[in-house]
């Protein structure tokens, strides 16, 4: 009896193994796009909409256009749980499969992968997160952080605050509180904030929130209550954001003086605090909403056909659309790479060139079915971020409302600091390779 069962099991395993070989043989004429996502753990509330957005746009291209340039995309998710260790493990497991590009979706994982990228010839696309200094293409040919770095984001927030107080020179003597997730991510903008504080004469108060206390934060907000900063800026992620919004409301902090970077701008970050969250501000670079033709196509071809994990009412939410933005860049980079090389199935090396020549104009956005979705994006050999503007959005109790124009970052302040930081990074990492990759002409 037992031997019989064993035989059946072995036969099944054999069948499956042959199926794997069959699918692998098929996979050769497709482009492998791994997505490092997290749908579990304390950061899942932010991770799920992003993962859905990224997956759905690429799946829509497969369904509607049969992939990119006639080549299907082989989309595969790897669960990282926002954990650096698991992220690196995911990277190790995908790197042998000739991935087009890697999206780490965690500043911690990005920092680990940056040195590996050039060695393994796999470009890293860290959309508006990761190492700010990686915007310097001369030193980091394999890393991209469009459309803006954290430092750009911070300078936009200060600019907005300046605008509200009646000019940047009026910031003198004011206090700006900075509440941040105490990890590589949250600490990243501090040098710029301190530099701006010196330049404009405002005071900075730092409130660090360790990962394990992000669902509590009572001590930090007590301190905020005591210090009464004129403005609060937040760099939070996952469960930290809704908690901070709730705590701010409880402590009577004026919500229209509480500004988060784009990663605090999910519907699920503001919604749990109910009506009290009204007035909460965040930056954003991808307009929420489902009234774009491309998003409608997703609705029709992917979500409508049950080929996605996204609930119908979540399509077009703020973080979801950021995921879409990320996938638009992947797709455009692959398209560029196909044009540059004339190949159908492109490799990581080709996609790196594709990313470096990416130029999405307003007209191109319209062509993509995303008219008015985002500011034009321009990446060059020297500038891997583009330093594109973002706008301020405000929670009206039920949805996000655009309340400002596109705010340009203070490139005059950020630029020199980026160069200095990149130089320092290269110096500290002895043996950091000189850039040998040639620059392509913009297309």
């Amino acid at each position: 009896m037992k031997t019989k069962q064993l035989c059946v099991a072995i036969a099944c395993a054999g069948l499956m193994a042959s199926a794997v070989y069959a699918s692998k043989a098929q996979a050769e004429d497709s482009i492998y796009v791994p997505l490092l996502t997290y749908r579990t753990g304390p950061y899942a509330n932010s991770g799920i909409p992003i993962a859905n957005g990224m997956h759905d746009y690429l799946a829509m291209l497969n369904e509607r256009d049969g992939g990119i340039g006639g080549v299907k995309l082989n989309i595969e998710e790897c669960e990282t749980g926002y954990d650096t260790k698991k992220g690196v493990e995911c990277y190790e497991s995908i790197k042998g499969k000739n991935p087009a590009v890697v999206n780490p979706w965690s500043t911690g994982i990005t920092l680990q992968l940056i040195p590996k990228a050039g060695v393994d010839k796999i470009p890293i696309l860290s959309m508006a997160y990761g190492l700010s200094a990686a915007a310097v293409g001369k030193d980091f040919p394999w890393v991209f952080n469009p459309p803006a770095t954290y430092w750009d984001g911070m300078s936009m927030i200060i600019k907005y605050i300046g605008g509200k107080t009646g000019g940047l020179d009026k910031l003198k003597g004011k206090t700006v509180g900075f509440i941040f997730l105490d990890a590589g991510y949250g600490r990243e903008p501090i040098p710029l904030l301190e530099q701006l504080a010196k330049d404009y004469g405002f005071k900075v108060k730092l409130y660090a929130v360790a990962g394990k206390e992000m669902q509590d934060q009572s001590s930090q907000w007590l301190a905020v209550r005591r210090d009464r900063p004129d403005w609060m800026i937040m760099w939070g992620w996952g469960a930290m954001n809704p908690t901070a919004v709730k705590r701010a409301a409880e402590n009577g902090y004026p919500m229209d003086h509480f500004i988060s970077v784009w990663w605090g701008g999910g519907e699920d970050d503001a919604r749990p605090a109910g009506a009290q969250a009204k007035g909460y501000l965040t930056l954003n670079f991808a307009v929420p909403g489902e009234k774009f033709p491309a998003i409608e196509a997703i609705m029709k071809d992917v979500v409508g056909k049950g080929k996605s994990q996204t609930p119908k009412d979540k399509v077009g939410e703020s973080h979801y659309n950021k995921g879409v933005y990320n996938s638009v860049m992947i797709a455009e980079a692959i398209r560029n790479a196909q044009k540059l090389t004339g190949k159908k199935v492109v490799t990581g090396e080709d996609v790196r060139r594709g990313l470096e020549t990416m130029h999405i104009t307003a007209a191109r956005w319209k062509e993509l079915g995303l008219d008015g979705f985002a500011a034009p994006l321009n990446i060059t050999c020297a500038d891997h971020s583009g330093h594109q503007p973002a706008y301020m959005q405000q929670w009206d109790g039920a949805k996000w409302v655009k309340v400002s124009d596109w705010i340009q970052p203070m490139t005059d302040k950020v630029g020199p600091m980026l160069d200095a930081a990149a130089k320092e990074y290269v110096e500290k990492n002895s043996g950091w390779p000189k850039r040998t990759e040639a620059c392509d002409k913009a297309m």
Partner: protein
Amino acid sequence: MLYREAGQFKTSYASDQAIFPILQDRIGIVVILAVAFTLPLYADDFIVNAVMIPFLIFSLAAIGLNLLTGYTGQLSLGTGAFMGVGAYACYKLTTIWPDVNIIVWVVCSGFFSAAVGAVFGLPSLRIKGFYLAIATLAAQFFLEWCFIRIPWLYNENISGAIEVPQRELFNIIVTGPRATAETRYYVVLCLVVAMTWIASNLMHGRIGRTWMAVRDMDIAAELMGIRLLPTKLMAFAVSSFYCGVAGALMVFLWYGGAEPAVFNINQSFTILFMIIIGGLGSLLGSFLGAALIYVLPIALRFGPELLGLHMHAATVEHVTFMVVGILIIFFLIAEPAGLARLWQIGKQKLRVWPFPY
């Protein structure tokens, strides 16, 4: 049957007291070592890099904690922090003196960890059991705080992470992104084998015996003339040394960089679970525990994929959590003394098979 010892005569005390008294065990260990040393020849990068290197490093850390908790009976929750001390010490040493051989610094960093461990082991003379665990928890939190708040430790890096520079050993790149998986694997393997051998000798000698005496009944041990303070502190120091080296290896030869969060309380718990599942007071148990806790989830995660079963990444994660949890409960019910004891029982059964009595 496999383990029948008939015909294996022991004619001297040395052969009777050997660590592997049975011929089959000796053959087994030679085979395991042979497989381990030839592994990169036939395994792919993923196996070497994401499975074997971490497995060996976790085994080393588990041995470290086992020396303290399994052999000396001092419960510790500071393992993660002691590993961190090793990693940060190694980072500081190699950035201050970049020309010194990196392996020297990896081993040296163990001494820093040992010193810190001995300091936090001081309360062990007065407090025992769970209370000691809480005292070591203080070490965990304090040291983690240091890793975050003292910028000197990570050379004022903006992101607060340590990045491993490239270092060479006999003109072969050992650390940094350009080091091949094989090189790193052999370095880790050699260190782990050597340190396991040392640990085994320690355990079979005077020091190990005094530790076990303290574990079994410290008053009796004291009455027999074992001085408790030096013995316990020694256990803390040696244990932390192992953890420190494991931490340095982890950052330098596996991750290639680390944030303080790597050395958080979860890391301590993971190692503690490894030795509880593997078997307290057993070197073999340290390896088995590391395999179960670390390698099994990877196998579960990537196994279905290899079989052609397509599941959502998140589903796999949930299933992995459940399966590992169930297995832990199963093994603890089947044999509370751990996998090492299970192996012992299995061996005993094999000796009398097919005629059990």
